[in-house]
């Protein structure tokens, strides 16, 4: 059983297999469930992700009206051919946004690793799919590779915004996605770990400050940037760039930053964007609606 990224990489490289395979083997060992069942369960999760993206790209609105429709705007913009940062990145971003817009609208999603950060992994997966043409099995493996890195973060740090801020949610998701992109593109397990480290370094300190306590503002747009961050970090790692700080130490730094983060900035809607004049105004307006609804 791997306890950290170094062990995960070592296991994959010594056996000359993908990180996904190490995760699958561990799942078999721990649960005693067959490989077929485990692959089938992840296949169903992948289907939920596909359906969420599809729904989001048609356009959804949350109950509050705070979020929805941005995925459609981005897709239309891509079609216009005027995009500056490139269609693949924008496609990843729009699909990450689509997933989170569905989540905010109380639709069905698959948490990766959480609901608030559920857009990054599928967003990047379905974007790189068009470039790399993976098989269904390889797409399922993408999720196991993401899961392996998320597993380390969850056990050694945190994936909860209330415990560690948004760096623990979108930060973790972004790192997980970057590592999985690298593996799908043919990178080595070490390169996957470098991508995770590079990504997470750029998410350190990110606070969780949702307006009105809703998983909407700024969560949806943080998923957008999480997806973009993952794509760039994956390309950097594939180019041969390494992180001076090893991945496990970055994860540890994230954990310690989370512990010292003020409570106001850990999913309590008391600080940051939630405490801005506009944030407070929206909160008052929305709670008016919510109160009437539940009583």
């Amino acid at each position, binding site marked *: 059983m791997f306890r950290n990224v170094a062990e995960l990489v070592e296991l994959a490289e010594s056996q000359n297999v993908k990180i996904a395979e190490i995760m699958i083997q561990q799942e078999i060992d721990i649960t005693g469930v067959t490989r077929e069942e485990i692959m089938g369960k992840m296949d169903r999760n992948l289907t939920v992700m596909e359906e969420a993206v599809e729904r989001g790209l048609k356009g959804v609105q949350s109950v509050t009206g705070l979020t929805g429709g941005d995925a459609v705007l981005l897709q239309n913009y891509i079609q216009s051919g005027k995009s500056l940062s490139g269609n693949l990145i924008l496609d990843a971003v729009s699909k990450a946004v689509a997933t989170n817009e569905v989540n905010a609208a*109380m639709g069905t999603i698959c948490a990766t*690793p*959480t609901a*608030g950060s559920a857009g990054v992994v599928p967003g990047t997966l379905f974007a790189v799919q068009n470039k790399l043409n993976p098989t269904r099995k390889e797409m399922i493996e993408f999720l196991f590779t*993401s899961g392996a890195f998320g*597993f380390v973060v*969850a056990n050694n740090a945190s994936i909860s915004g209330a415990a560690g801020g948004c760096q*623990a949610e979108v930060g973790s998701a972004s790192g997980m996605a970057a590592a999985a992109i690298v593996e799908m593109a043919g990178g080595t397990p070490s390169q996957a770990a470098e991508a995770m480290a590079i990504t997470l370094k750029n998410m350190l300190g990110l606070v969780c400050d949702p307006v009105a306590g809703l998983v*909407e503002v700024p969560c949806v747009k943080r998923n957008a940037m999480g997806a973009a961050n993952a794509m760039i970090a994956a390309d950097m790692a594939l180019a041969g760039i390494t992180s001076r700080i090893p991945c496990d130490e970055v994860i540890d730094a994230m954990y310690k930053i989370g512990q010292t983060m003020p409570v106001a900035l850990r999913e309590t809607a008391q600080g940051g964007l939630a405490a801005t004049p506009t944030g407070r105004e929206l909160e008052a307006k929305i709670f008016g609606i919510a109160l009437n609804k539940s009583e």
Partner: protein
Amino acid sequence: MKYKSVFDIIGPVMIGPSSSHTAGAARIGRVARTLFGKQPTKVVVSLYGSFAQTYKGHGTDVALIGGILDFDTFDQRIPQSLDLAKKEGMDVTFVEEAAITDHPNTARIKMSDGLKEIEVVGISIGGGKIQITELNGFELNLSGMNPAILVVHNDRFGAIATVTNILMKHSINIGHMEVSRKERGEVALMAIEMDTNIEDDVIEELKTLPHIIQVTRMVE
């Protein structure tokens, strides 16, 4: 290790918007209902920390009640659970607590049906994963993900051994076990998580043992 399965990370499939505040809350509610054994008629939920601050925005209230109505995390009825509970005659009260708890996402659920009452404390630790940390004043650490039994017994020597002997006889492997008591020699609680489901006849056999007061099954 807090997280054991890759499906704790890639999953659960759930109704949005928050894995900790919606899916985790639904799971806490559902485990509490399982512990109670049936649908209660009266529910009082006290919310602490981030749960207390943001429960309306996250749908934590509808998720907890959805769980108490026995809905899974992906059940499309969760958004309507408060109305559904009302229709089924369940009296629901939410209390926002200011007290600081060990974990920011904590819910204390009191349930009754006029005959019996239980009090369960659950925490949502992220990604939809939960722990039950207290039952009727006894400290616990249950995930709610594995088959488990809760055995209320008198705190006497040999009480634990008699229970584990029966499990051994039926080839049931214990994955995790805790014992907890309020005072020496008084009532105590064994929480036993197992790798396999436990049959009714084994539960009945456990109930006949000396010093055993109550045996409750808790299955996912």
